[in-house]
């Protein structure tokens, strides 16, 4: 088997909480991401789901090295992201890109579309001159379904969906292998969401891209992803092939998440059994002992409060972190 494009090993990100003005001391840490591991094969789309605040976005940003990792590492196409410096870091930046959640915040309001999309070309010196860059920007705009004549417009002249396309064009400019899509559709209108998802799929086919698709919309993730990872409070609780995960979820949290997806058939909807979680997500500053999910878990036993569940491969390709997954 060939080496996967992306390998994440025990990646951890804690944000220290500091107190004091001049003499700072660390009084605790928000454990946003705690020791997650996974791989992404070339050409694959890995979905990452979980509720708000579970660390999905932080995981995506940390694995690209936009935040320094507390521990662990990411290897993208043979480069260790957090150790890369200088020209190797530029290689990583060229090969791995990101699409952001908020199309209103992710484009510099004072730059034209041309400057925004050509920035990666300029920074990585991919094309010799301004003229070649302009041509390439026009190509990219056409590729993402925008009118190449709008090259000199400013972001505020576009709609949310169009802006997201500009963001996608920028991400594609450096011809990356891997793109982290950080909830690229959750800020968009439902009708526009489908357009953008279809565009992402089309681009994947055309350019052979690999995606890490962070989202909280389970149906959309099922539509676009090959494998799906579920996060809860900074840890990964389950990872499996898409259909396997949706049909045979092993972790009680995954079961609860899946049962929250509405079924578009009122009769079935009335009959099906829902797993309703009680309580709120605990604070990541002081996560529960043992299994982080135990205070809300419908099937938790004494052991769950003490032992941290191991990350196990229960079936081929189906990983889960739960003591009771066998039952």
């Amino acid at each position, binding site marked *: 088997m060939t080496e996967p494009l992306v390998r994440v090993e025990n990646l951890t990100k804690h944000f220290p909480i500091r107190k004091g*003005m*001049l003499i700072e001391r660390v009084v605790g840490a928000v454990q946003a991401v705690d020791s997650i591991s996974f791989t992404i094969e070339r050409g694959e789309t890995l979905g990452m789901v979980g509720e708000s605040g579970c660390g999905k976005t932080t995981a995506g*940003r940390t694995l*690209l090295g*936009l935040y320094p990792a507390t521990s662990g590492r990411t290897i993208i196409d043979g480069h260790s992201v957090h150790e890369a410096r200088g020209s190797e*870091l*530029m290689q990583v*930046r*060229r090969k*791995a*890109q*990101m699409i*952001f*959640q*908020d199309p209103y*915040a*992710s*484009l*510099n*309001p*004072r730059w034209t579309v041309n400057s925004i999309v050509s*920035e*990666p070309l300029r*920074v*990585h010196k991919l094309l010799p001159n301004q003229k070649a860059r302009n041509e390439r920007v026009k190509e990219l705009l056409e590729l993402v*379904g*925008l*009118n190449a004549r*709008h090259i000199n*417009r*400013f972001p*505020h*002249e576009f709609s949310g*969906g*169009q802006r997201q*396309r500009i*963001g996608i064009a*920028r991400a594609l400019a*450096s011809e990356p292998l891997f793109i982290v899509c950080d909830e690229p559709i959750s800020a968009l209108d439902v*009708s526009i969401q*489908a*357009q953008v998802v*279809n*565009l992402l799929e*089309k681009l994947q086919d055309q350019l052979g891209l690999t995606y890490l698709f962070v989202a909280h919309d389970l149906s959309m993730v099922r539509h676009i992803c090959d494998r799906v990872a579920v996060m809860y409070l900074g840890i990964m609780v389950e990872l499996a092939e898409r259909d396997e995960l949706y049909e045979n979820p092993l972790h009680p949290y995954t079961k609860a998440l899946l049962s929250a997806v509405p079924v578009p058939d009122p009769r079935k909807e009335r009959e099906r059994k829902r797993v309703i979680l009680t309580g709120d997500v605990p604070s990541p500053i002081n996560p529960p002992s043992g299994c982080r999910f135990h205070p809300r878990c419908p099937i938790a036993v004494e052991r769950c409060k003490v032992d941290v569940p191991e990350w196990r491969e229960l079936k081929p390709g189906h990983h889960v972190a739960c003591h009771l997954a066998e039952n």
Partner: protein
Amino acid sequence: MSVSDQPVNMIAEIEAPSLSLSDLTWRRFKRHKMAIAGLVVLFLLIIYSFGGAFFVTEKYANFTDTKERLQAPNAKHPFGTDTIGRDLLARTIYGGQISIIIGITAAFVEVMIGIVIGAVAGYFGGKIDAVLMRFTEAMLNLPQLLLLIVMAKFFSSDIKNIELFGREFSGSVVVIIFIIGLTSWPYLARIVRAEFLSIKEREFILAARATGTPTWEIIFKHILPNSIAPIVVSATLGVAGAISLEAYVSFLGLGVRAPTATWGNMLENAYRYIESAYWMWFFPGMFIVLIVLSINFLGDGLRDALDPRSRTV
């Protein structure tokens, strides 16, 4: 695929020509009547000081004729003459040039220092920020006038005249520019820092970092253009501030030395003649009031026009 992946951008083809950011800014600025008035007055004052130089020479402005001292405004000397018989009209023209140049260059020095200190503190944060901001606050706590007077006294011991564009200036002009610039930057530094703190957290900065854009480019091409509004406003007000500070210091006799005229140092001896020779303080004083007021109104207008949160169009 049931949903087309082509967006409906046909609609975009028929929309009205779009307004750029500068169009919108100009629209908002135009509604500010006092700002427009300020702009006009400022423009006239600039024409007066720089255009007037085509009609009178600097030699004439510095020409002393004690026979004609302390003359009231008359046909030969429309603004009258001063204690040693220099023509006040000519002196307000050349003094205006120096005052305006001092105002602009001192504000430029202020803006440069303020941007660098504010940008570094705001972007890098942490210890660098703490050190720079404590220094800035220390500067703010010293009364600026006291600092100005001390520095003016300190640097005024040995000043040579300098030649530029075939004209001779008192070296004290340069000294004044620097001491005003070096004492006015703390406010601006704090404004720039605050802007940087908020803008650096926006997603497009993260996008630039994900692209691999070098730090200096993020600071100067991404963040700075987005914090330009408050910088332009305080730079404008800084020009007015520098002109009045120069007048203040010159009035105390610590500013620009004769024979180089400024609106400020023309007032230096005028206070002895407040009743007997009103023209000596009236004309330079009027010009100072006019320019400071017009620049302040202009700054107010710019603040409203450049602030994207203010009412649109």
